[in-house]
């Protein structure tokens, strides 16, 4: 008997099916891409939006949190582009090469495409798909887990994104800044980016996501990142979405032998945020620092879900995630370190800590270790707690008013994670965001 229970589609799921049916012939790409889109959507249609009975989505029930699906974004108009000029301010005044996307579409005239460093190629995914870029198919979809429904939806509906290649041995001095900005018109965007760092390449990649407060737009973003042998890649993602936005993003990276990868996720905006990170340590003796800081308040929900998959031997990974939760906000961290059979001499340490600033704040920490090798050093720790009253008293006894004492302790708490970013100007910019957040909290 084939007793598969067909689930009743939610309004959002029905709307997505309708949107895909209407848009599929207009989405960029040849027949092979179209077939991939169809297969991905079929998977989504079968599974539906992820919900709490799926372990990986236990704390972020998208079926409940995503009441409706917004219409697919249309190309940005002049007004939307004009507003996007000042976007990306969350990185402070550091010098970057900006690549600007408005409502998910690449806007060349707002981007900084002049004088590309030797070995750097930058383009838009929509163009690459339309042109049938042969290099694209060999990378696209190779890292993002196809079975993940958020990824499947992204693959089905991906409209645009960045395609970046760094040639072997090339050092790109200026960080690349992908600026994603939503316009005033609430819409759904599906952006997909691809970054291929060839052996020995050096690059820093910053992604920032923002949009207007009060607008219930939806972002589904995915980035596939190939890190070649001995390459050194930094990736910093800043989620500064508007107050009512839904943001689901996936970073999938593969790290080849002796490469260095330093990733940071900073979450400060958005109503519902899900940051997924999937890492494969494919080559021997890699070094990775995977860190993040989350500051949420009111009724914000922010989930960071990480899978660090140690496949090759001798890799070192350090995971440090800190969250500060105020109001009735809900912070989630799920971190899984997997050490495969052959991954001897793996050295993996994961620490996640939550600081709860109010009675009704909630933090769920779920660290997991799955170890199939015998010569490894692995550890994890998780804590959740309130501000240390003894420390606060010590600071007050030295003259700091209560709010300043708390602010200093919160900054110190997050500083431990933010220190991991290998760019002083960016560290300062993020600490400034933290200070502004704390100031808004008490004023």
């Amino acid at each position, binding site marked *: 008997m084939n007793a598969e229970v067909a689930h009743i589609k939610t309004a959002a799921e029905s709307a997505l099916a309708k949107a895909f049916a209407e848009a599929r012939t207009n989405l960029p790409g040849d027949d092979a891409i179209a077939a991939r889109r169809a297969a991905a959507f079929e998977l989504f249609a079968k599974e539906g939006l992820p919900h709490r009975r799926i372990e990986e989505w236990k704390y972020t029930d998208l079926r409940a949190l995503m009441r409706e699906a917004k219409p697919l974004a249309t190309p940005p108009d002049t007004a939307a582009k004009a507003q996007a000029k000042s976007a990306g301010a969350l990185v402070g005044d550091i010098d970057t090469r900006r690549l600007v996307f408005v409502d998910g579409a690449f806007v060349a005239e707002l981007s900084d495409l002049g004088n590309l460093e030797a070995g750097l190629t930058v383009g838009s995914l929509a163009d690459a798909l339309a042109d049938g870029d042969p290099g694209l198919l060999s990378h696209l979809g190779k890292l993002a887990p196809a079975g993940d429904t958020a990824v499947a939806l992204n693959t089905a509906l991906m409209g645009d994104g960045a395609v970046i290649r760094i040639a072997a041995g090339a050092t790109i001095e200026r960080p690349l800044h992908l600026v994603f900005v939503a316009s005033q018109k609430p819409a759904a965007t599906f952006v997909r980016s691809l970054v291929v760092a060839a052996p020995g390449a050096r690059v820093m990649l910053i992604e920032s996501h923002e949009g207007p407060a009060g607008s219930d737009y939806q972002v589904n973003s995915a980035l596939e990142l190939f890190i070649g042998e001995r390459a050194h890649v930094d990736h910093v993602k800043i989620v500064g979405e508007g107050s009512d936005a839904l943001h689901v993003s996936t970073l999938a990276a593969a790290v080849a032998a002796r490469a260095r990868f330093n990733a940071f996720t900073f979450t400060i905006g958005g109503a519902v945020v899900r940051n997924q990170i999937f890492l494969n340590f494919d080559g021997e003796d890699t070094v990775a620092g995977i860190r993040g800081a989350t500051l949420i308040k009111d009724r914000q929900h922010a989930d960071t879900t990480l899978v660090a998959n140690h496949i090759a031997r001798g890799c070192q990974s350090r995971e440090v995630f800190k969250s500060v939760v105020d109001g009735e906000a809900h912070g989630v961290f799920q971190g899984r370190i997997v050490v495969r059979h052959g991954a001897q001499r793996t050295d993996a340490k994961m620490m996640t800590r939550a600081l709860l600033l109010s009675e009704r704040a909630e933090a769920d920490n779920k660290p997991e270790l799955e170890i199939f090798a015998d010569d490894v050093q692995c550890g994890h720790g998780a804590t959740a707690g309130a501000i240390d*009253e*003894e*420390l606060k*008293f*010590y*600071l*007050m*006894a*030295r*003259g*700091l*008013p*209560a709010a*300043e*004492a708390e602010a*200093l*302790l919160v*900054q*110190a*708490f997050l*500083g*431990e994670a933010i220190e991991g970013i290998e760019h002083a100007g960016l560290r300062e910019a993020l600490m400034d965001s933290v200070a502004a957040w704390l100031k808004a909290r008490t004023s």
Partner: protein
Amino acid sequence: MALLEIKNLHAGIEGKEILRGLDLEVNAGEVHAIMGPNGSGKSTLAYVLAGKAGYEPTAGEVLFNGRNIFDMEPDERAAAGMFLAFQYPLEIPGVATMTFLRTALNAQRKKRGEAELSTPEFIKRVREAAGKLGIEQEMLRRAVNVGFSGGEKKRNEILQMAMLQPRLAVLDETDSGLDIDALRIVADGVNRLRSPQRAFVVITHYQRLLNYIVPDVVHVLSRGRIVKTGSKELALELEARGYAEYQEEVPA
């Protein structure tokens, strides 16, 4: 008017009365030692003065410079010139000692309506004060008290005191855990700050510290009250005879 006036102070923790009618007057320029056996209320007195949550006064009053301190938050007391050197200084991961000193000093100055210190002026003062206490520059860059030895932590307390220049400093068992060299450095640090405008209350179990910080007045605290007051010789007497005679219930 005395700088500090404590009148019939009753206070305790979680409903348990520890200070039972304590009276004390400290004038500017004086150094008072408060000695007493374990459990006599020495640290409770220090915490009540600094305003630690949970150390609640139930009766009596404490006037600092004529102001009732129970109307003031701990930071307001600090800005008004009160300083407590902690028996167990806390570690503050992620906050550099330099940042901590500067934030504290500027918070106090702001509350008093004074301008913030310029960076060069601040650094000059810190270097000078740290140098006198044998505190390395490198330590100032490290997180407050993290990885410091017991002696370093106590020296760091004295450095904070030197930077904040309080009117009244309460030293809670500053000698505990110190070897003789560290004790001398800490005591020298305190003695350099003695002035006609400033007063000290030195809380200690042992007479040893008082060889280096010579008090004007010595009090014996027992069962939450001052039971005897004398000159510095009283400390020597206590050292020789112990606290046994003061631990009996004092007739009312």
